[in-house]
């Protein structure tokens, strides 16, 4: 009950790899925030482009509810342009094209970039940055693809991670609702939490489901990382609920000490992470 077979697969990635653990605490302060706490997310250019369109926040970058500061992309390198301090290029992964920059400070950086030429398949790892209104990748690694099975693997990773990030919460909810309990998966809730079982046993109506969905959103690493948490309207919009329904669920969690208000009565964060 603690985890479905599907979760078992995903947990292989917990923490250090592609799949950031739900329980991961992001440090509150400044510079290190963007660098730590999250793994590298395998993505396609189209996913980045769509997330850009829907993302109002210019500093945090979120794909499928997960912080996507550090990403891994794979595609064909094009328009390589070498300069004294950096190498710029375009990466085409079949879903779209994105500009990337690799700063060259050390000889090793220069050597690495000398190995890749326009027209080659490369894997890049780097940070997503906004510059002059455009998104680009600042790469910290650009490696040629040697075994082309890696191409298929990358697309599989993108699919898997996307499905995992978008479906896990739903399937947990379904499993929990089916047996009328809310046994938390270890990643989600800490042991000191008051068990919800007593309060919700047998209650599988929509009210309980809303409460669970609202809490799931507030427990996302992206929300935890944000100082003021999420606005009620933002949660309502994402779940397609009315403000009243959302507020009712938040009040419920607030009374139980699961969430707390931050800068005003409309912003909330989870107390359970």
């Amino acid at each position, binding site marked *: 009950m603690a985890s479905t*077979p*599907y979760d078992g*697969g*995903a947990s292989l990635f917990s923490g250090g790899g592609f799949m950031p653990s739900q329980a991961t605490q992001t440090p509150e302060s400044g510079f290190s925030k963007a660098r730590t706490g999250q793994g590298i997310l395998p993505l*396609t*250019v*189209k*996913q*980045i*482009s*769509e997330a*850009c369109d829907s993302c109002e926040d210019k500093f945090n970058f979120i794909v499928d509810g997960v912080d996507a500061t550090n990403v891994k992309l794979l595609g*064909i390198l094009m328009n390589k342009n070498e300069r004294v301090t950096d190498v710029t290029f375009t990466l085409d992964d*079949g*879903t*779209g*094209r*994105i*500009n990337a920059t690799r700063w060259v400070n050390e000889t090793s950086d220069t050597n690495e970039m000398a190995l890749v030429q326009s*027209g080659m*398949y490369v894997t890049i790892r780097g940070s997503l940055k906004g510059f002059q209104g*455009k*998104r680009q990748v600042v790469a910290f690694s650009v490696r040629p693809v040697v*075994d*082309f*099975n890696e*191409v*298929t*693997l990358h*697309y*599989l990773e*993108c*699919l*898997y991670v*996307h*499905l*995992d990030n978008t*479906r896990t919460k739903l*399937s947990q909810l379904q499993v929990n609702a089916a047996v009328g309990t809310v046994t938390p998966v270890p990643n989600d809730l800490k042991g000191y939490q008051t068990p919800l079982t007593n309060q919700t046993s047998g209650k599988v109506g929509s009210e309980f489901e809303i409460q669970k969905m609202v809490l799931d959103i507030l427990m996302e690493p992206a929300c935890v990382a944000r100082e003021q948490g999420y606005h009620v309207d933002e949660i309502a919009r994402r779940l397609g609920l009315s403000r009243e329904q959302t507020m009712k669920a938040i009040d419920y969690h607030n009374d139980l000490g699961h969430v707390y208000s931050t800068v005003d009565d409309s912003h909330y964060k989870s107390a359970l992470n």
Partner: protein
Amino acid sequence: MDTSSPAVFVNGELLKMYVGRRVRTVLNVAKNEGGVTSGKCTDGQELTVKGGDATSFPVSHFVEVIGIADSNQSIRVEICTDFGEQFVSYVELQGLSGDMIFIGKLLLIVVTWNKGPFIVD
């Protein structure tokens, strides 16, 4: 960022649906004659590709082709990449479980991929 001309993943069967559009596929090269390369696609159907440097690839190599679908069975090459002789991943990809569709052959991945938030809206 430019997502205006994506290359849709196709096999022999799916190619028919995307005539005139930018597509990508992998061929196992069987023949190289007169500037035309032909070979079997991932679902076993025979495809031909024209143009580019597709003709420079040796028989039995797997070649990825990105280009415009000319007809039901041919692609005009923009970019092609030699994936070598050991490109096995499209034939059998088993062992992935979970609530993703069970993957036996690339066709299923291709369908999932093209319908997902990745290429085709």
